[in-house]
C-alpha cells in the first residue's frame, strides 16, 4: 500500500480547491451561455431589432428634414401663428424647387398628404411651377401658384412635419387627432374606424378560439383514448390542412358555402331551409373558414396533454363511486387545463394576425387589423401608419397576455404531461 502512495508535493489548501472549482464552474457557465449565443443573436437581429425599428417608424418624422433641411430648421424656429415670415417662405420655396429637381420632393409631399389628403399633388405641382431662383416675394409667388399657400393650415402642417417626431400616426390609429389648437381630440365620425376594427379583431379571434375549443376538445379526447396506430392515422387527417395552401383552403370554403354551393344545396334538399343562407362574404364565412384553418393548433396541445393523463385516474374515480360526468369534471378536465390554456393562446394569437382568409371570405365589414397593416405597407406605402397600427396591436396583445397569465396563471399554460 505504501508503495502506491506517492508523496504529494504540496497538498493544496481547501481555499485553492474552492477557487479551482469556482473557476471550472464559471468556465462551464460561460460555455453554456456561449451555446445560447446563436439563438440570442438570432432573436436580436430578427426579432428585437425589427420590433424596435417598427416602434420607431410609428413616430418617425424625418422626411422634411432629409429633403429640405434648411426649411425644416427655419420652420422649427417659427411660432406657428398665421403665415410664416417671408424668409421662412423663401427658404422653403428655394429648397422645394431644388428638391423637385433632385426628385426628393415626393417624400415630403407624401408626408404632408398624410396630414391632409390632397396636399401631395398640390405640392408636386408647386414644385413643378416654382422658378429656379428663389422669388423675391416668396409668399406671394407661392400663393399665385396655389391658393392653399394663403391658408395657415398648410404652413402649420409643414411645421408639424419639421418636428423631430410625430404623434400623427399613433393618434390616428387610435381614432384621435390634433385639433387646430393643438389639443388632442376625437376624429370626426365617418373617419373614426380603427377602434371599431381593433375591437372586431378581438371579437373574431375570441369567437374562433371558442369554436376551436368546442370542436377540438371532443376530438382530442377521442384521439387520446384510441390505440396509438389508429390515433396516428386520424392525426394525419387533423394535420392535412397544414399541407394545403391557405389560399386554396379559403377558396375552397367559398365554393362550399356559396349560395348555390353544396352546403346550401344539401340543406335545401332535406327541407331544412327554403332559401339559400348567406354563409360566405360575411362574418359567418370568416368564422367558419378561420376555425377550420386554426383547428389543428387547438387539437395538438389538447391531445398532447390528454395522452399524458393516466387512464387509471378516471377509473379510480369511477371505482370510488363517482358518476362518469363527475369523474370527467373533477378528475379529467382539471388536468387538461394547461392544454386548453396553451391551445387557446396559440389560436387566439394566430387569429389576431389573420388577413388573407377574412379578405377572401369576408365582407367589407369583416376585415381585421392586419388587413389594414398590409394595406398601408403594400398598397399606399405609409409605413408610419402601418407601424402605428402594428404597435397598437402589439401593445393590446401584450396587455391581454399579461391579463391572461394573471387570471389563468402562466404555469398552467403548457403541453407537458
Amino acid at each position, binding site marked *: 500500500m505504501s508503495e502506491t502512495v506517492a508523496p504529494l508535493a504540496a497538498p493544496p489548501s481547501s481555499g485553492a480547491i474552492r477557487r479551482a472549482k469556482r473557476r471550472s464552474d464559471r468556465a462551464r457557465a460561460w*460555455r453554456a451561455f*456561449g*451555446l445560447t449565443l*446563436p439563438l440570442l443573436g438570432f432573436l436580436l437581429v430578427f426579432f428585437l431589432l425589427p420590433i424596435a425599428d417598427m416602434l420607431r417608424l410609428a413616430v418617425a418624422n424625418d422626411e422634411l428634414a432629409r429633403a429640405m433641411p434648411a426649411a425644416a430648421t427655419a420652420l422649427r424656429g417659427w411660432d406657428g401663428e398665421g403665415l410664416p415670415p417671408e424668409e421662412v417662405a423663401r427658404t422653403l420655396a428655394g429648397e422645394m424647387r431644388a428638391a423637385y429637381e*433632385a*426628385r*426628393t*420632393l*415626393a*417624400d415630403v*409631399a*407624401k408626408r404632408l*398628404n*398624410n396630414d391632409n*389628403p*390632397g*396636399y*401631395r*399633388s398640390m405640392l*408636386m405641382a408647386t414644385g413643378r411651377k416654382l422658378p429656379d431662383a428663389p422669388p423675391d416675394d416668396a409668399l406671394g409667388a407661392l400663393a399665385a401658384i396655389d391658393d392653399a399657400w394663403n391658408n395657415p393650415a398648410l404652413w402649420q402642417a409643414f411645421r408639424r412635419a419639421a418636428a423631430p417626431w410625430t404623434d400623427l400616426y399613433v393618434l390616428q390609429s387610435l381614432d384621435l387627432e390634433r385639433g387646430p389648437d393643438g389639443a388632442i381630440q376625437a376624429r370626426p*365620425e*365617418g*373617419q*373614426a*374606424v380603427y377602434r*371599431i*376594427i381593433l375591437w*372586431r379583431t378581438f371579437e373574431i379571434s375570441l369567437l374562433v378560439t371558442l369554436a376551436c375549443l368546442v370542436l377540438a376538445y371532443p376530438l382530442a379526447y377521442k384521439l387520446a383514448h384510441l390505440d396509438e396506430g389508429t390515433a396516428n392515422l386520424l392525426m394525419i387527417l387533423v394535420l392535412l390542412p397544414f399541407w394545403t395552401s391557405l389560399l386554396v383552403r379559403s377558396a375552397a370554403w*367559398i*365554393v362550399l358555402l*356559396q*349560395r*348555390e*354551393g353544396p352546403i346550401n344545396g344539401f340543406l335545401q334538399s332535406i327541407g331544412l331551409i327554403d332559401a339559400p343562407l348567406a354563409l360566405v*362574404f360575411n362574418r359567418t364565412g370568416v368564422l367558419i373558414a378561420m376555425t377550420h384553418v386554426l383547428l389543428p393548433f387547438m387539437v395538438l396541445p389538447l391531445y398532447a396533454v390528454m395522452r399524458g393523463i393516466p387512464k387509471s385516474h378516471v377509473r379510480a374515480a369511477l371505482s370510488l363511486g363517482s358518476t362518469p360526468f363527475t369523474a370527467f369534471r373533477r378528475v379529467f378536465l382539471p388536468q387538461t387545463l394547461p392544454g386548453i390554456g396553451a391551445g387557446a393562446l396559440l389560436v387566439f394569437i394566430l387569429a389576431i394576425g389573420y388577413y388573407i382568409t377574412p*379578405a*377572401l371570405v369576408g*365582407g*367589407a*365589414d369583416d*376585415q381585421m387589423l392586419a388587413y*389594414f397593416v398590409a*394595406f*398601408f*405597407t*403594400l*398598397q*399606399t*406605402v*405609409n409605413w408610419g*401608419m402601418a407601424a402605428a397600427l402594428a404597435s397598437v396591436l402589439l401593445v393590446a396583445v401584450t396587455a391581454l397576455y399579461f391579463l391572461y397569465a394573471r387570471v389563468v396563471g402562466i404555469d398552467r399554460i403548457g403541453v407537458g404531461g
Partner: protein
Amino acid sequence: MIKPLSLGFAAATLGFLLAGPVQARDLTVTSWGGAYQDAQREIYFEPFAEKTGDKVVEDSWNGGIGVLRAKNEGGESAWDVVQVEADELVQGCEEGILEPLDWQELGGEDAYLDTAVNECGVGTIVWATVLAYDAAKFEGKEAPSSWADFFDTKTFPGKRALRKGPRQSFEFALMADGVPLEKVYEVLQTKEGVERAFKKLDSIKDDLIWWEAGAQPPQLLASGEVVMTSAYNGRITAANQEEGRDFGIAWDAGFVYQIDSLVIPSNSPNKKEAMDLIAFMVAPENQAKMPPKIPYGPTNKAALDQVPPEVSKNTPTDEANLPHGLFFDRDYWVDHTEAMTERFNAWASQ
C-alpha cells in the same frame, strides 16, 4: 464550439466579398406573370431576342411602389424593363427611381393616346373595370345597360359585387347617380360629392358583395352568387372564350379605364437595350398582336386600326367603347386612397 461557427462566418464573408460587383447581366423584363406574360413572351420577348440576338430574361411581380423602391436601393437594379400600374408610374417618376424615356425612339408623344404618355413611362395596354353580367340569366329579359340599373334592385333583383374599397366604387356610384363622366372626379373633390357616393352605395348596401381579387368576379357570376358585378374586362372575355360562358359587358353603361406602362428603373445597367425592347413592344404592328390573345386595348394610335373589329369590340379602346370610358384619375387616388379607405371602412361598419 466556436470554431465551426467562426469558420462558417469567415466563409460566408469571403463568399460575399467574392460575389462583389454585379456582373453585366442579360436584359431582364418584369411583368404580371400568368396568361398575360405568356402572350407577351410570344409576341414581344421572343421575337425581340430573335431580332437583336440579345437574350431576354423574365421575372414577374405583383406591383407595389415599395418593391420598386427596394430595387432602387444599393447597386444596380435586377430589372431593366418593368410593367407598372398608374400609382407606381406617378410615384416612381416623382421619386426619381424611374428613368425618363427617350420619346424620340418611341416615335414621339403624338403617336400615342394622351393618357399613355408620361415622362418615365409609355402605356402598353388599356384595361377597364366594366359592368358585367351573366347573359344566360337575362335570356328573354332586359339585361342591365347602365350603372343606374346596377343600383336598381327592384327591376334587377339579386346580389351584385364591387371591388372592395373606395376605388371605382365611388366612380360607379356617381355615374349611377347621374353625374356625367367628365364631372365625376370634379364632384369627388368635394365633401358633398363623397357623401353623394356613399349615399348611393348605401341604397344597395345589403345587396352588395365585395370582391378582392380579379379572378373572383367571373366566379361570382358563374356560380350565380351575383347577377351583375364590376370586373376587369379581360377576365370576362377570357371566361367567355375559355370556359364557354355567356357573360355580357355593358360598355355603354360607362367604365373606368387604366393604363399599364413600361418603365426603366433608373439604376438599370442595360438602359439602352431596355429602351430598344420598350420601343419594340409599343410599335404598332407588335401592339396590335395583343388584343386577339387578351382583349386589352393598344395605346399606339396606329395600332388601333390594325386590330380586327370582332376583337376590337371587346377592348376599351374600340371606337364605339372609348367615349363611354372614364380615365382613372391617378392623382386623385394617390392623394385620397388612404383617407377614402378609412371612410369606406367606417361606412361598411355601420
